[in-house]
Structure formats: structure tokens, C-alpha cells
């Protein structure tokens, strides 16, 4: 976390004391507030404009970020990750549903003591059996959770008494605590348990969102909005905001339009030209938040039709390096993101502890690129496109039509590669088709974007031989045994310094092998109405502390007076 975006850090530092002071002043009101427009910092509505809608409110079935945001606010975990996003041991973790925990001497089990004041939104107490149910549910193949493979090291949970749960692990690992506490969201057995696990994805209870978080679900109008309101009797305290509305827009443009027209207070992904507009606006401001995503052009290393054979073009390392050198990454970054882009230096976003932006990069050098292609046997044909053994240097670039930034990059790269004699065919498909091709290595090259875990083990999924399998995320099918060994050592180490040094050596080899052209980190710049004051922003989700955002009483508008009343 040493490379967190500077601007958001300074903002976090600036607001934290203010928020603390406000909380102290308001101490007496906590828990007694039932209606709106409370004095001081309590009260107010935040409207977040989102393109697309949550698919479910059962945490284990969540796939999209939009649903993740809402379930994170409605549900709790046993403990919350610290601001440094540490994943080794339990350093920095603060209590949520568990008041405290003890490690067994052999570290194969951890005993969690639940907070006796914790209640589900329907009034039932949170019990140890809920913890057992939550883990068992997530491990149940019939449930079909996206996180099942992430908690294979968690064996089970046993119930000692109604407030004491014991989690059992198969092996002692650096990240066993993180695996359980971060990946498993605790859900109510009495609400979900009556529905067979296989039917939860379509059952009505999947849309009720009964959790134990500081916000509760107020309404879900399909295709229109999802509203959550303050849980006034919450064991962790009432949130400062009365209400958060996720207003669903059908696409990116109308979501942005809603923000600029004043119908919404926040819009998560501003484009560069919109940033300039917000910067000049007296009502709104820019909110940069860190991210764990990175975008790259991946070369498929294997033949899309026959995975055991190398790709006829990209199997050759020299070709991959030449094509990488033909792309002016900085100019493209400037073209697409103006001044707000962040260049990617390898398979890692800045925000990760193992990131290293001093690693040597392949240069932008079209002369060298042409020379490399010549010596690799690809010689210019009559129409300027290179040919080798009767095969043209022509390939498809698989791009999801839903992403404007990747579309723009694809067109820029198409032209850049044409200049060195490679013909790129833009295969633009809807997101689903693109994703299906990605998962089955059925592409020549693709515009990929990947969101890693806070843990360095995310790299093993995407860049080791083990990740080539269908369940992994090594879509380019990159395989290098030295890299495999180095990344294994990096994740097995309990010493952060050694983890970093192993990872650094692995990254150096990957960059040199050029399985991808490292393009950018998606700039995550939100627009926010100025009356809303934020607190800390974490890279795995800017909303992690949203319950403590506030709107000072003097700055409220008509929307903020709605309070906790329900719709007519």
C-alpha cells in the first residue's frame, strides 16, 4: 500500500480528523435518531449514478462491482481489512461481527467471539451457526459461488456456543486469516437456509438483502434504483447518511448525464473530458480513488484451435517483442486519458505492495521493431503486410464493445501495427462473447482488463502455468517454469520483503518475455457533489467507509430532507 494514489491519501488525511471531531460532537445522538435532517453531520441522501444494475444481493453470488458495492454495505464480515490492505496474518484487521479472535497454537484453527449486540436487519440475533452456514454455503458446489475456489484452505466452521465459532483450516498459510475473513461474507441462515443452495440465484430471497451491515435495504425497483437506508439500531453505530440511492442508468452516457444534470451526486468513472468539466464546476469536485485493475493487450501463446501447439504468430518471442516496441504506450495513454492516465509497467497495479515501476521496459522503437520482424522471417509483402511461409501477419484483436477506453486503444493499436506491417482485425463483440473467448483461449490477441486481489496470490491465477486451466485466469496461456517457481515462493513467504523480491524477479522475466503489451491502469476518478464529505478510500473498494461519509447540516438540499421515510 506504499504506492497509494497521492491525492486520495492527502484527502483521507485531511478529512479523517474532521470526521472524528464530528462523531465526538454527535455522540449523544447515536442510536436515538429515527427521523431525517438530524443535527450536525447525521442525515442526508447520496445518489450514486451507475450504468447497469446489481444482479443479486446474495454476497457469494455477486459478480459485478455494482452488486459488490451494495452487498458490502448491507452485510458484514467477521473482521475488516486494515487500510494498508495487509493479507498476511491478522495485522491491521479490525472487528466487525467478531469482537475478538484467538489463534490455536498450531494455527490450524481460529476461534471467533461474535458481538452479542449484532442483529440481522429483521431483528434476529447473529449466531455462530450463521458463520458455519455461510462457510458451508460458499463451499457448496450447488450454490455456484464465484469465490468457492478462493477458500479451499478453509475446511469448515464448528459452533462452540451461539456466540463462539471455530474455523478450521487445512494448512497453515500466510493468508489463511485473509482467506476466511475477506472472502466469506456472513449471511443469515434463517433467511437463506430454507431455500436449496442451487436455487438461491433465482429465489426471491436473493433480492431481499437482509444482512447485519450499517445500511439496510429500503427498496429495489428493477431497472430504476436500489435504495439503502441507515440501520438506526446497528451494533456498529448508525451511519451518518440517512440514505444511499443507486440510480440505475441503462448505459454509461445516460449515467454520466444524470450526474451532470444534478439528478445524482456521484458518478464513479469519469472520462478525461468530463474531469475537466467537473474541475471547473462550483458544485462538484473530483474524487480520485485507488484501484487494483490493470489493462493490457494479451498475445495468445497457444493456437486458439489446438492448445497443445504454439500460436502460429505469437509463439515467437521475437515477434511479441517487436509488436510491443511498435506501440507508443505513452502517446496512447495521453490520447485516451489525457493527463489522468497511469502507465502500466508490468502485470501489476501501483496500489499493490509488490508493485515495482523501476523495472526495465521494452522501448518504443519502430525501427527496431521492423528489424526484429525482418530477422524473424516476416518480410513485407506487396500490400505492405508482412508474410512468412505464405502466411500473412494478420490477426484478430478481441475487444468487448462495452468498453470505450479499450475500443479506443484497439483502434490506435490497429493503426500503429499497420505501420510496421501487421494487419489487425478488430473483433468487437458484446461483453459476454468476449469473456467466453477469453476463458477458452479462443482469440489471437485480446484487450484484457484484470482486477487482482489485494493479495499477491492473484498473480498465480493469471501468470503461472497452473492458471492456464479453465478455472484460472491465465488467458494468454503464458508458461515459464522460473516464473512459476518464483511466484510460488513469493506467496509462501511470511516475510513481506522476501515476497517483494521474489515477485520482482518474476515480473522482470514476464516483461522480457512480452506475453502482453502493458497499457494502463484504468483511471478511477469519480465525480462527487461538493456537499458530500468523504473519509478514507481503499483500493479494493472506495465504499469501504461510506457509512462515515457525511453532509454537514448547512449544506443540505431538498434531497437530503427525505430522511428515513419510505416512499409513497
Amino acid at each position, binding site marked *: 500500500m506504499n504506492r497509494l494514489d497521492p491525492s486520495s491519501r492527502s484527502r483521507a488525511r485531511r478529512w479523517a480528523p474532521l470526521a472524528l471531531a464530528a462523531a465526538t460532537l454527535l455522540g449523544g445522538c447515536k442510536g436515538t435518531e429515527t427521523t431525517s435532517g438530524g443535527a450536525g453531520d447525521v442525515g442526508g441522501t447520496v445518489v450514486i449514478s451507475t450504468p447497469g444494475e446489481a444482479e443479486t444481493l446474495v454476497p457469494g453470488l455477486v459478480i459485478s462491482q455494482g452488486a459488490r458495492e451494495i452487498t458490502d454495505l448491507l452485510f458484514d464480515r467477521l473482521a475488516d481489512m486494515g487500510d494498508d490492505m495487509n493479507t498476511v496474518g491478522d495485522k491491521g484487521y479490525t472487528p466487525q461481527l467478531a469482537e475478538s479472535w484467538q489463534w490455536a497454537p498450531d494455527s490450524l484453527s481460529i476461534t471467533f467471539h461474535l458481538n452479542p449486540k449484532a442483529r440481522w436487519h429483521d431483528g434476529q440475533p447473529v449466531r455462530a451457526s450463521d458463520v458455519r452456514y455461510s462457510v458451508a454455503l460458499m463451499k457448496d458446489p450447488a450454490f455456484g459461488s464465484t469465490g468457492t475456489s478462493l477458500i479451499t484452505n478453509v475446511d469448515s466452521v464448528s459452533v462452540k456456543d451461539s456466540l463462539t465459532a471455530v474455523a478450521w483450516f487445512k494448512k497453515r498459510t500466510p493468508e489463511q486469516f485473509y482467506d476466511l475473513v475477506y472472502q466469506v461474507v456472513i449471511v443469515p441462515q434463517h433467511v437463506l437456509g430454507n431455500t436449496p443452495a442451487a436455487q438461491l440465484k433465482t429465489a426471491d430471497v436473493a433480492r431481499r438483502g437482509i444482512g447485519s451491515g450499517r445500511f439496510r435495504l429500503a427498496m429495489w425497483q428493477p431497472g430504476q434504483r436500489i435504495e439503502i437506508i441507515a440501520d438506526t439500531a446497528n451494533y456498529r453505530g448508525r451511519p451518518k447518511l440517512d440514505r444511499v440511492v443507486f440510480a440505475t442508468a441503462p448505459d454509461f452516457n445516460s449515467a454520466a448525464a444524470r450526474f451532470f444534470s444534478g439528478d445524482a451526486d456521484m458518478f464513479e468513472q469519469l472520462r478525461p*473530458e468530463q474531469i475537466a468539466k467537473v474541475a471547473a464546476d462550483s458544485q462538484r469536485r473530483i474524487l480520485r480513488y485507488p484501484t487494483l485493475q490493470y489493462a493490457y493487450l494479451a498475445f495468445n501463446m497457444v493456437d486458439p484451435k489446438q492448445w497443445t501447439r504454439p500460436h502460429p504468430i505469437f509463439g515467437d518471442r521475437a515477434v511479441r517483442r517487436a509488436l510491443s516496441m511498435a506501440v507508443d504506450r505513452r502517446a496512447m495513454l495521453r490520447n485516451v486519458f489525457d493527463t489522468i492516465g497511469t502507465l502500466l509497467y508490468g502485470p501489476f497495479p501501483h496500489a499493490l505492495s509488490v508493485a515495482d515501476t523501476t523495472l526495465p521496459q521494452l522501448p518504443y522503437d519502430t525501427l527496431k521493431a521492423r528489424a526484429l520482424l525482418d530477422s524473424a522471417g516476416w518480410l513485407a509483402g506487396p500490400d505492405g503486410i508482412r508474410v512468412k511461409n505464405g502466411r500473412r501477419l494478420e490477426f484478430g484483436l478481441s475487444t468487448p464493445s462495452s468498453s*470505450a477506453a479499450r475500443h479506443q486503444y484497439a*483502434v490506435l493499436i490497429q*493503426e500503429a501495427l499497420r505501420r510496421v506491417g501487421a494487419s489487425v482485425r478488430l473483433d*468487437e463483440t458484446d461483453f459476454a462473447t468476449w469473456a467466453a473467448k477469453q476463458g477458452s483461449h479462443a482469440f489471437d490477441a485480446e484487450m484484457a482488463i484484470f482486477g487482482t486481489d489485494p493479495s499477491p496470490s492473484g498473480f498465480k491465477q493469471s501468470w503461472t502455468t497452473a492458471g492456464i486451466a479453465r478455472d484460472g485466469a491465465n488467458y494468454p496461456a503464458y508458461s515459464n517454469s522460473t516464473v512459476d517457481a518464483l511466484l510460488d515462493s513469493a506467496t509462501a513467504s511470511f516475510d513481506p520483503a522476501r515476497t517483494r523480491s521474489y515477485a520482482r524477479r518474476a515480473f522482470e522475466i514476464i516483461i522480457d518475455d512480452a506475453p502482453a503489451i502493458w497499457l494502463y491502469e484504468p483511471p478511477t476518478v469519480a465525480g462527487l457533489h461538493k456537499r458530500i464529505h468523504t473519509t478514507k478510500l481503499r483500493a479494493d473498494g472506495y465504499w469501504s467507509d461510506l457509512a462515515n461519509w457525511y453532509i454537514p447540516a448547512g449544506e443540505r438540499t431538498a434531497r437530503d430532507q427525505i430522511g428515513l421515510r419510505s416512499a409513497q
Partner: protein
Amino acid sequence: MNGFLAAIRPPLSRLARDGRARAAAVVLLLVIGAALLAPLLAPYDPTAQLDIVRLQSRPPSWAHPLGTDQFSRDVLSRLMWGARISLAIAFVAVALSMTLGILVGAIAGYAGGLVDAVLMRLVDTALSIPRLLLLIAVVALWEHVGLAALTLLLAGTGWFTVSRLTRAETLVVREKDFVVAARMLGASPWRILTRHVLPNVAAPGLVAATLGIANVILLEAGLSYLGIGVRPPTASWGGIIQDGAERVGDLWWLTLFPGLAILLTVFACNALGDALRDALDPRQLPPPLGDDTSPQRR
């Protein structure tokens, strides 16, 4: 073919005296000329990215009269080259759909009975699916729809009304004395089709074709606007609007100019079609229901 020419000549001379038709023809010739001469007239290569940092998203200026897009490509050059694509698709698609429509209509009308019933029921079915929706479904669900396939799809969904027109005409002609006589003398159906049916269909067919071209230009633009028509980096009018649609507020020149080009061309085609119909039928009868002038158009 003499019958065909004879049927066409008087209306054409009436058309030449119509000011509206002359103006439309001039506009169309200009657009076609710009399209044909694009390689000579266009100031830049339509796909060349001139300077992706310094020349991107420039508003209209002397160097780039219609501005540049976000890839630093010259919009005027793209508009001229785009005319080639948009017009070529429209002309080829309409030629194909006219041929197909006339064939199916003539077969249905001439054969009658079960063949006629089945064919016309199919045409009825096809007409009750909105053409645009059908095209979107096919183009979006099947990937790699290239220019040729797109043209074929537009042709394949555009022949229904023409086939009805031809069928009706065939039914009338079939019972005429001289046709009955010709049949009895052993004239082949093909001969009857080319000698007697075609000349009668030629006039309304020409109107339908002119309006059909306008219609296909609009459809192709609509599909490209949805991002599923002509693929980048090839320039097409709808594609340029699509390039700018995400930023219509600040890159207005990407929406305005290609839109005007479409409007002008389609307007000219429709005006010519109207003038043609008036010239063919000076009494100004209403258009037969279901032809391309009815709101079936999309």
C-alpha cells in the same frame, strides 16, 4: 427489353422537366461524385492517425474543415470515403433485393395456388417483424458480419414489398388476352415475365428502388450507430456518428456533419422518388399500401 424502355421513356421526359427532380439529381450526383473521386479529392488517408496526441479531437479549422476525431483522423476525408461505403452498400443491396423481390413475386403470381399461398404467407410474416429489430438480432448475434454479409442481409430483408408489388402486377397481366394467347402459343414463363410482366413492374419498381436506397442508407447508418454495422477503421457515415456519440456534447462536429450528409442524401433520394412517382402517374394516386412510402419503412 424494348417494352421496358418504352414503359420508362415518357415518364423520364416528364421527370426531366420537374425542378424538384433536377435539384435532387444534382445533389445525388455531387454526393456520388465526391464518393467516386474520394481518392483524388480527400486531403488525407481516411484511416491515417495524423498525431494522436496533438491533433486529436480538433474542432473545424482551415487545415481540417470538418475537424478531426479522437484518433486524430481528418473528418472530411472520412466523410468522403464513408460516402463510398454507405452508397455502395445501398446500391448493391437495393439491386439485389429488387431482383429477388421481382423473381419471388413473379413466381408467386404466375404459379398461383399453393406456391403463391406459401410464399405470400412468408412475406406477410416477414413484414410483421420490424426490419430493424431483425437486422440487429442477426448482426449482433453473429460475429464477423463483414461488408458483403451486411449488404446481403440488407438485401435479404428488403425484397418483401417489391415481391407483393410484382405479384399483384403478374396476376393482372396473366389474365390479359395477349398473354393468354402467348401462353397458348407456347411462350415460356421466362419470356412472359421479361416481355409482359417486367415492363409493367418497371415503373413502380423504379420508385421503390429509389426510396429503397434512401431506406438502406438510413438502416446502415442506424446499425453503424449502434456499433454493429460497418467495422472500424473503415469509415461509414453512421460509424462517424458512433465515434462521436459518446461525447456528443463536446465533439459535436462528429455528430453534425455526417448526420447532415445522411439527411441530404436521403432527402434527395426521397425527393427523386416522389418526383418519379408523380411523373409515372400524373393523377397522383395514393401509393399502394405496403410499398416503401408507407411507414413500413423501417
